[in-house]
């Protein structure tokens, strides 16, 4: 490793440590004024009373502050629950906004300084490490030593990284009140972009986008000379920055609903939720466009583009989850399980989630037209189960947290309902396939090993059979790592897609078919 890379790695780790330490600094002091600005008017009176013991009390850590808040708040709610006074129970989560308001630390005074010494420093360090990668080396496959790397082959470093990511996701989804300082740190950025205070989701979006950009540059270094990988990586970087990050913030600035124009139901599972529909319907022409565009993508965009190009047009060129998997997750692609058993589990799970998403959405829509009568309770229940189990736990905690443990496409492979939908189209009506090159396969296993979706590519390649699989996201890495030029991603005539070529071209004696 070059000196500059060691320095970069050092700076990255320092930045990461500071980032991880920031939530623990500062003091917390709650005032009545804060409660008044944060809570809804219908809760104001109750909340002011509940939190009275905390006013003007100075807390030296967020743990103490949150613990005290939770005690008081739970005591109030539990009392009501015991009396079965369900209507009076406060269901809103005020822990995060109140902790954020009560925070008084150097972070709130100098947010940009802290942003610089944590996130910016880590990015800078990461880039110092990445830019010199493979400099002076000829173009080619850069997989040397992957299985000797603790980070990339489920060693101690990999397990630590996975644990860190899982913890981060758990805090982000369910305990954001513990990371308010980090959110405060990005407030100025959020205000500059959308004119609004940052939420934990803004923080997440920012980190997500930066991860895709920095690790996207790593992809350029690693796959230099491979035009397909370079263009594809450029595409996911563009869609993340423009469509998932900037445009939604600009929409907020214009007082329009937050909207990601490239997200498609059922991945975007809340698309048909009443608040989203109402948000769009009440936002004029642009809002109507969002609604119509979203529906066009579902009913025309997905089938048509998948017919012509395969599901790769979305999964490895456009999608945000795919974008993170293909950049941040690339070092872990070899960790996916290739066994037949895993494939069986995958089919049950991913199609199960699709069915769940469709049912939930159907109930939601029926409920909408029944004007929230009969199905109101069921809809809310379904939404919260789906949001918790699939939207947060599966897509986030498992989906990304398990990168270093089970590979970078756990969510896409086992959980994403949109991938399941795209996959059904790809499997049964598409021009896309991975063509195998006659008899050139030597069964080495590089293709299967580096397939992030856990497809046993070699199984097909060694029998001269084209690969037509619902799960293939068309990342093209099997083709890149093949040492004998056997695999080619192609969109071509449907005729000959499921080929019946003899295993070996080159024998006149017998023609053995797969």
């Amino acid at each position, binding site marked *: 490793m070059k000196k500059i890379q060691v320095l970069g790695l050092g700076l990255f780790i320092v930045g990461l440590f500071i980032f991880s330490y920031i939530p623990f600094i500062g003091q917390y002091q709650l005032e009545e004024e804060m409660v008044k600005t944060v809570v809804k008017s219908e809760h104001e009176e109750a909340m002011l009373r509940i939190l009275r013991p905390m006013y003007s009390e100075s807390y030296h850590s967020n743990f103490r502050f949150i613990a005290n808040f939770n005690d008081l708040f739970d005591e109030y709610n539990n009392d009501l629950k015991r009396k079965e006074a369900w209507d009076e129970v406060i269901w809103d989560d005020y822990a995060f906004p109140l902790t954020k308001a009560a925070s008084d630390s150097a972070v709130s005074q100098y947010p940009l300084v802290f942003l610089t010494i944590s996130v910016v420093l880590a990015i800078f360090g990461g880039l110092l490490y990445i830019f010199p990668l493979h400099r002076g080396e000829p173009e080619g496959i850069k997989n*040397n030593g992957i299985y000797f790397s603790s980070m990339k082959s489920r060693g101690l470093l990999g397990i630590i990284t996975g644990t860190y990511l899982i913890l981060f996701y758990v805090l982000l989804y369910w305990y954001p009140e513990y990371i308010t300082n980090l959110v405060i740190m990005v407030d100025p950025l959020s205000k500059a972009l959308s004119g609004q205070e940052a939420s934990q989701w803004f923080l997440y979006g920012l980190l997500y986008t930066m991860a895709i950009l920095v690790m996207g540059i790593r992809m350029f270094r690693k796959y230099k000379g491979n035009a397909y990988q370079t263009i594809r990586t450029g595409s996911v970087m563009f869609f993340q920055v423009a469509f998932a990050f900037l445009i939604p913030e600009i929409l907020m600035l214009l007082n329009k609903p937050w909207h990601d124009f490239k997200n498609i139901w059922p991945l975007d599972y809340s698309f048909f939720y009443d608040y989203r529909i109402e948000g769009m319907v009440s936002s004029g022409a642009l809002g109507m466009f969002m609604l119509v565009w979203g529906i066009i993508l579902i009913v025309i965009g997905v089938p048509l583009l998948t017919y012509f190009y395969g599901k790769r047009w979305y999964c490895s060129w456009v999608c945000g989850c795919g974008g993170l998997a293909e950049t941040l997750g690339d070092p872990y692609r070899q960790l996916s399980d290739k066994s037949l058993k895993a494939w069986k589990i995958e089919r049950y799970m991913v199609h199960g989630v699709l069915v769940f998403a469709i049912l939930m959405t159907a109930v939601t829509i029926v409920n909408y037209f029944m004007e929230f009568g009969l199905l109101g309770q069921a809809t809310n229940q379904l939404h919260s189960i789906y949001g918790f189990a699939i939207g947060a736990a599966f897509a986030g905690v498992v989906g990304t947290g398990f990168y270093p443990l089970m590979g970078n496409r756990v969510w896409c492979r086992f959980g994403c309902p949109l991938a399941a939908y795209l996959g059904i189209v790809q499997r049964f009506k598409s021009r896309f396939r991975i063509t195998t090159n006659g008899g050139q396969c030597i*069964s*080495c296993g*590089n293709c299967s090993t580096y397939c992030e979706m856990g497809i046993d590519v070699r199984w097909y390649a*060694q029998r001269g059979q084209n690969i037509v699989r619902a799960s293939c996201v068309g990342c093209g890495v099997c083709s890149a790592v093949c040492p004998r030029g056997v695999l080619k991603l192609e969109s071509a005539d449907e005729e000959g897609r499921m080929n019946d070529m003899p295993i070996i071209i*080159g024998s*006149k*004696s017998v023609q053995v078919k797969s």
Partner: protein
Amino acid sequence: MNKRKIVIIGNGISGITCARNIRKNDEQADILVISGETKYFYSRTALMYIYMGHMKFEHTQPYENWFWEKNRIDLLQAWIELIDFKQKKLICHNGTNIYYDVLILATGSKPLMMDWPGKHLNGVQGLYSYQDLQLMEENTNGISRAVVVGGGLIGIEMAEMLASRKIPVTFLVRESNFWDNVLPQEEAKLINRHIREHGIDLRLSTELEEILDDGEGNVKAVLTKQGDTIPCAFVGITIGVMPKIDFLKDTDLEIGRGILVDPYFRTNMKDVYAIGDCAEFKDSIGENRKSIEQVWYTGRMHGEILAQNLTGPNEVPYQPGVWFNSAKFFDIEYQTYGNVPAQIPENVETFYWEDQSGKVSIRFNFLKHSNRLQGVNAFGWRLRHEFFDQAISEEWTIDQVMEKLDSASFNPEFYKPYHRLVLDAFNKAMGKQIRFKKISFLHKLIGSRA
């Protein structure tokens, strides 16, 4: 079909392909595959990737372990010491006897070794088997220089393996350019440059004289015929491989360099066959084909055909079609179809094109009078096997090939369209006006293949 016991010695690509294809056609037969090397079939060609950390051993196994039981192919890890052909009996290293009705010998190869002084020193080895790989792991641990002797496919792979661990390599090649007994000059030189680009100390026209002892039975250095001493702690001997048939030497089985077989893979003993690297054809199997074929693809063909003959209604002789092969030299892939000898014959014309990068090239050999395509060599450019199989077996003229060259490429999407550059160069050199068929924008957009 009566239930017979088919025993296969060797679980490489030939033996395993044969076992699988027998099972496909014969539900009844008892099939036993014996190997001393590993219990499960793995891809020998992938050994290098284990050393380089691209894969682990289990990734090189083309079938999951349950596959064998499901298909009722019994596996036994054992070395066979002796074969009693009269009693149809195999004797294992531990003394166990195994009886067979049909015996298939697919024992593969072993590294070729010459009588150099010092060849038995610690740190001197070839690379063919899994055990060789384990030994290489041990022998190269923490060393400061390695020498590889022999400029062939395994030699360059070994150099790449060592370089991946940042071990400085001196690569001794007897020929005046890398592998130039197979490759024409231009291609051999292209690879010379690429080897050096990877920091390998490539020494052409250099032969090994002696391997020097450090006094404790380990390698200290090598001495070349030119008189240079190269200090090193590892010497990879990669001058070729030979059939691994030592245990068959003093039997009634007819052997030459390999086990002698007819075009049906029959040996001189009844119900005994030989396929793959260890088989030697008594009679020529075709123009420009060797009598011992040590290639993955031919091994697989042998296995398929023998399985067909053992289970089908009529036996067919081995009739290989158009020759093809491929390899990868560091980052440069190589494919060949048909016949492209190192020395261009009198009656053959050749057209060679090299990209300005010096890393991509293609050569077409065609007959001088009829212009019929004879063979193609491609470097850094993937070609479509189906296309050239057809072009060569149907004897297309070079002009016909050029006209359709746009559909011959197998490179990934968005790669540089080399076929255009080649066509321009060809037109210029030959004074011709060949054009590709126009493809409409719409067709390009939806990616239709010609």
